[in-house]
């Protein structure tokens, strides 16, 4: 069972709620994914359309809401959004996103670390979205992040886990859960992240823009479960060389004849 900040999650698939064609499809897709954590964003109310309320669409089921700070360009903006999110839902969970470059939407490591330090002190449960930088992951963990969310590839690109080499190091070193976020474009990408030992994955675009988002959500749920089971079963290692199946003896450079 995955535990983040004392809360248990039986599903290791987290869903983003953006870019769906309608609230109804979104709600159905979330139900099909069996996920227990959904991200939401904060925006100004559309005063022309006051009834457009995502919480109403999501309301029937029990989820942990993970408000994000999308749109924040620096730590101060993120902290302001974090406080608004807490006031809006009364929960301290937060996906911290600080993305100063509107083109790539890559996260700013320095501002993210600054904001994490402050928000943890203010009592938030902070899950920072970050580039797959192992040292940054450790510093965010030391600053009190409840989990780290390294990106697989830039957000919305569907390119999969291009940062696998770095994510493997993060998974090996971190004390907190590692949630691979962003860039996961296919169930196989999610399975791959889980096989590596990621604690969870967060998926949005790949589901919301699929031909049939509900069916795709179900496919992701299976992939995440399969990947996790494979990890727990203990994967065989890839190797470029064939390996002899009986012990080698003699004539090796590492000669042990000196042993008494």
């Amino acid at each position, binding site marked *: 069972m995955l535990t983040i900040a004392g809360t248990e999650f039986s599903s290791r698939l987290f869903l983003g709620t953006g*870019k769906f064609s309608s*609230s109804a499809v979104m709600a159905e897709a979330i139900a099909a994914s069996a996920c227990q954590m959904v991200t939401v964003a904060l925006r100004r109310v559309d005063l022309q359309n006051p009834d457009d*309320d995502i919480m109403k669409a999501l309301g029937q089921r029990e989820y942990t809401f993970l408000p994000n700070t999308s749109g924040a360009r620096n730590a101060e903006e993120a902290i302001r959004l974090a406080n608004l999110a807490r006031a809006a839902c009364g929960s301290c969970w937060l996906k911290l996103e600080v993305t100063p470059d509107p083109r790539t939407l890559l996260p700013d490591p320095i501002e993210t670390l600054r904001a994490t330090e402050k928000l943890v002190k203010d009592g938030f449960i902070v899950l920072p979205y970050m580039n797959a930088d192992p040292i940054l992951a450790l510093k965010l963990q030391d600053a009190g992040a409840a989990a780290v969310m390294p990106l697989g590839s830039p957000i919305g690109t569907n390119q999969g886990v291009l940062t696998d080499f770095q994510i493997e190091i993060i998974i090996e070193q971190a004390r907190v859960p590692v949630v691979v976020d962003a860039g996961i474009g296919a169930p196989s990408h999610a399975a791959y992240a889980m096989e590596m030992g990621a604690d969870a994955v*967060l998926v949005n675009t790949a589901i919301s823009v699929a031909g049939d988002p509900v069916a795709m959500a179900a496919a992701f749920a299976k992939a995440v479960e399969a990947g996790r089971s494979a990890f727990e079963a203990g994967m065989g290692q890839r190797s470029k060389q064939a390996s002899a199946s009986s012990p080698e003896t003699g004539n090796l450079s590492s000669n042990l004849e000196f042993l008494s």
Partner: protein
Amino acid sequence: MNITLNGKQKDLPSSQTLTQLLADLELPAKTIVVELNTIIIQPDSYEKTKLSEGDQVEIIRFVGGG
């Protein structure tokens, strides 16, 4: 009097409260959060919060996002 509401100018009768403003906009108080001049106003203070000329009001809610 004039206030800025979600970035747009809005003309309001003077000394209107936040409760009245939200009712006029047909917004349920439950799922939104109000920031007045960058300070978050708790729902139980809407009634006693009177708006004044030049106030910046932001009304925010959750939307879909990843």
